[in-house]
C-alpha cells in the first residue's frame, strides 16, 4: 500500500501538527512513513503545507509532486493543489472554508465541516483534529487508537491537558464523514 | 665560581631554544615577561598557549607549556573552544596586530564580548612583520609601508584601530590595558598588566587582554635605540598607555 497525502492550509491552522500526528499514527500501525514540511520563509505567514507518505514498503522520495489524497483546510489549497491529485485520488476539504470545487478528473470529493464542528465544540482551534478524523476515516490506514496515541508525542507537555478535547474532535470528524452525507464523485 | 651569585636567569617557563627574532624586536622581552608571570603564578603546568600567524607563530618553541597553533586571527576562537573544554586550564593567546586587529577582528570582539575566560597577549607594532612590512590596521597616519608606499592616508586606508579602547567598550567583565616595553619602567608595568590579564582569567573575573606596544626594527628601518625612541615620541601619543577596563575582585563581589 502507498498513501501520498498532502495537507495544506493557512499558517496557524495546525497543518504541521496534523502531518506529524498522522505520521506518528502510522508508526503505531507499524508502517513506514515520512513527513516533509514546507519550511523557512515559505511558512512565514500565508500558506503552509506538508507531505506525509505512508507505506508498508521502504519509502522512496519524501517529496511528492502528485498525491493520492489532498486534505485541504482552505479554498486556496483546493485551487492550488487539485491538479496535483492523482486520478482516483481523494480531496477532503474543510467545508466551511471552501466555496467552490474546481473540476477534477476521476476524483472523489469529501466535505467535512471541520470549522463548524469545532465551533460547535466551542474551540475553533481543534478544527484540524476534526479534519484529522475525517482524513483517517477516508484513508483507512491509521486507526483512531494509533492516531490518538500519537497526541502525547506531538503535543508539547504543557498542552497535554488538551488531549481529551483533541480526541473528542477526532471522533467527531470520523462520525461526520461516516454519515457520508456529502461525499460524491466528480467526473 | 666562588663569591658569585646568580642574579638573573631564564624563567622556567621558557625553553632553551634561542629566539628566532630580529635584533631589537620586542617579542623577546614580551616572551620573557609572559614566562616570568607563568612562573610567578605557578601555572606553567596548567597553561595552554595559542600561537597566531605572523612572526610569533614560532613561539610554540619558546614557552615550555602545552601549545596549540591557530590560523591567522582565529586564536580567540580556538582558545574559547579549549577553555570551554578544559576550564581548569589557563589558556592564553599570543597575537600580533595583523592577526588580531585585521583578519581576526571578529573573533577577538566576540571573545571579548562574551568575557571569555582567556588571556590575550596582543603585540602591537603597527606593521605586518612576517610578510614584509605591509600596512597593519594599527599603522599610524602618514607612516610608510610596503603596501602604502606614500604613507597611510585615512581617505584610502582608514584610521589606526585602537583595540584596547574598542574592546573595553564591549567587554564589561574584563581587564584590558595598554602597556609598552621600550624602557625599564614600562617593562615593569607591562609585567604587572600581563600578570593581571592572567589573574582575571584564573579568578574567573573575566576576559584579560594586555596590549603591548612593540618594535619592528626591520620593517621600521630603524635601529633598536631609534625604535625605543619612536615608541616614546610617536607611538604612545597616539596609543596612550593605561588601563581601559579593570574588573577587580572587589568590584566583582559587589
Amino acid at each position, binding site marked *: 500500500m502507498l498513501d501520498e497525502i498532502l495537507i495544506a492550509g493557512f499558517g496557524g491552522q495546525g497543518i504541521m501538527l496534523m502531518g506529524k500526528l498522522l505520521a506518528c499514527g502510522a508508526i503505531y500501525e507499524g508502517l513506514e512513513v515520512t*513527513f516533509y514540511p514546507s519550511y523557512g520563509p515559505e511558512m512565514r505567514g500565508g500558506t503552509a503545507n506538508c507531505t506525509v507518505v505512508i507505506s508498508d514498503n521502504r519509502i522512496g522520495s519524501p517529496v511528492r509532486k502528485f498525491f493520492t489524497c489532498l486534505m485541504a483546510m482552505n479554498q486556496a489549497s483546493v485551487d492550488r493543489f487539485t491538479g496535483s491529485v492523482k486520478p482516483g485520488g481523494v480531496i477532503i476539504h474543510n467545508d466551511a472554508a471552501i466555496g467552490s470545487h474546481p473540476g477534477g478528473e476521476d476524483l472523489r470529493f469529501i466535505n467535512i465541516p471541520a470549522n463548524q464542528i469545532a465551533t460547535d465544540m466551542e474551540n475553533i482551534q481543534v478544527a484540524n483534529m476534526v479534519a484529522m478524523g475525517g482524513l483517517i476515516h477516508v484513508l483507512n490506514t491509521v486507526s483512531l487508537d494509533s492516531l490518538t496515541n500519537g497526541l502525547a508525542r506531538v503535543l508539547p507537555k504543557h498542552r497535554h491537558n488538551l488531549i481529551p478535547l483533541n480526541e473528542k474532535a477526532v471522533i467527531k470528524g470520523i462520525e461526520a464523514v461516516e454519515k457520508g452525507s456529502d461525499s460524491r464523485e466528480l467526473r | 665560581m666562588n663569591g658569585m651569585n646568580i642574579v638573573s636567569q631564564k624563567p622556567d617557563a621558557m625553553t632553551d631554544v634561542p629566539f628566532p627574532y630580529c635584533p631589537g624586536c620586542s617579542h623577546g622581552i614580551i616572551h620573557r615577561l609572559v614566562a616570568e608571570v607563568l612562573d610567578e603564578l605557578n601555572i606553567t603546568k596548567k597553561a595552554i598557549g595559542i600561537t597566531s600567524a605572523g612572526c610569533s*607563530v614560532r613561539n610554540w618553541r619558546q614557552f615550555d607549556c602545552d601549545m596549540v597553533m591557530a590560523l591567522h586571527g582565529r586564536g580567540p576562537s580556538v582558545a574559547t573552544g579549549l577553555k570551554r573544554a578544559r576550564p581548569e586550564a589557563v589558556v592564553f593567546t599570543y597575537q600580533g596586530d595583523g592577526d588580531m586587529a585585521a583578519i581576526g577582528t571578529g573573533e577577538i570582539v566576540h571573545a571579548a564580548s562574551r568575557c571569555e575566560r582567556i588571556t590575550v597577549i596582543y603585540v602591537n607594532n603597527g606593521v605586518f612583520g612576517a610578510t614584509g612590512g605591509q600596512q597593519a590596521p594599527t599603522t599610524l597616519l602618514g607612516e610608510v609601508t610596503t603596501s602604502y608606499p606614500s604613507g597611510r592616508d585615512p581617505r584610502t586606508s582608514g584610521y589606526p584601530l585602537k583595540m584596547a579602547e574598542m574592546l573595553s567598550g564591549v567587554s564589561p567583565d574584563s581587564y584590558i590595558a595598554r602597556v609598552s616595553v621600550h624602557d625599564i619602567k614600562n617593562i615593569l608595568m607591562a609585567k604587572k598588566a600581563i600578570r593581571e590579564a592572567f589573574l582575571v582569567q584564573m579568578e574567573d573575573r573575566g576576559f584579560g587582554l594586555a596590549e603591548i606596544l612593540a618594535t619592528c626594527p626591520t620593517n621600521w628601518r630603524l635601529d633598536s635605540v631609534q625604535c625605543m625612541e619612536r615608541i616614546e615620541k610617536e607611538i604612545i601619543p597616539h596609543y596612550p598607555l593605561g588601563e581601559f577596563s579593570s574588573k577587580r575582585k572587589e568590584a566583582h563581589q559587589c
Partner: protein
Amino acid sequence: MTVKKKDNRALPGKTLMRGNEAVGEGAIRAGCQFFFGYPITPQNELFEYMARRLPEVGGTFLQSESELSGINMVFGAAAGGRRCMTSSSGPGFTLMGEGLTTLATAQMPAVVVCVSRAGPGLGRISSAQSDYRLATKGGGHGDYQCLVLGPASAQELYELTYKAFDLADRYRNPVIILSDAILGQMMEPVTTDGLKWAEAPEKTWVVRGKGNNPRKVIKVAPHTDQELIEWNRNFKKKYEQMTENEQRHEALYADGANMLVVAFGSSFRIALDSVVRARDEGVSVGLFRPISLYPYPEEALKRLLQEGASKLLVVEANNGQMVEDVRLAVCGAAEVIHYGVGGGYVLTPDEIYDEIIRFDRNGRHQ
C-alpha cells in the same frame, strides 16, 4: 466511539524525528559534549536541537559569531580531547574550509555537518546536492582529506553521525556528514536504542596543561621542509588506509543489472521509486548508493561492472559533481551519463524513470 486504553509505551524506541534532529541525537548518543555553530537555513533544527539537548547531558552549546569562528572553537575543544561538532549549510560550509584543513592538518577528530541548500552564491534554501565537490574534494587549501558520509534517511542520519565520531577518533581526522534540505527537514521514525551511549576515548595527544609530563604541541605548521615532507607522507598513508577500509555502499537489485542508477542521499530516495517502477516494467536496472562519499566506494562499483552493468545513470541534484568520481572509478569501462539539475527544482521519480527508459533504449545521444 471511544478511544481504547492508551499504549504509551509507543513502539520501542521509535520516535518521529526530523532529519536534522536525528543528526543531533546521534551526536549526543556518541558522547558529543560541545557544539559551536551559527544559524543558517536549512540546518537550524540541528543547531537548536543541540542548544536544547546539550545542557541536559552536561554539555556546552555556543552560538559563534560566524562559521569561521565556530569551526575554530571546534578545533579548540577537539584539542582539549572532547567530542565536538559544528554544522552549517553551503554558504557557511564554505567559510569552514579554512577550519577543515586546519583540523585535518592538526589531526583533530571532529564532526562537521553540511545540510546542503541550493547554490551557487547565497542561493536559496531549497534542497540541492551542490556541495558534493566542496565536501569531498576540499574547500580548504593543501593536500588534506576529510572522510565524508552521505546518509539517506533519518535513521541513517542518526547512525552515521554516531559512527562519524568513532571514525573521527580512529583516524584523528575530521568527518563530514553531507546531508541536504530534504533529508534535514523531513521527519521519519528513528530507532535510537540500537546504539550504546558512548563517550570520548582517552587520547594521549590532548592538551590540558602539561602537568608533570613533557609538554605537548598541536601544530598546523611544520618547522622544517623535512618535517612537512614527513607530514604529507603520513597523511597520504592515512588517506590510503581510509580508502582501503572505509568504503561503504548500498546496492539494490544491482546483481546482474544492465544499468545502474548511481545516487546518494535524497536523490537516492527519489531514484528508488523510479527504479522500482522501471523494474516492474521489465527494465534491467539496479541502484547503487555510495554511503561513503570519500572514500568513494569504487571497489563495489567495479565489481558490479564485472557482473554485467554497462550503463551508469548518475542522478544527483546538481549540474554534475559526483559523476566525476563515478567516471574515475569505472575508468571508461561503462557508459556514464549524468542526470540532474542544480538547485531550485527537485527531480521527480517520473522524470528519472523517463531518463532510465531513454538510456535503456538508446544510450546518450538519441
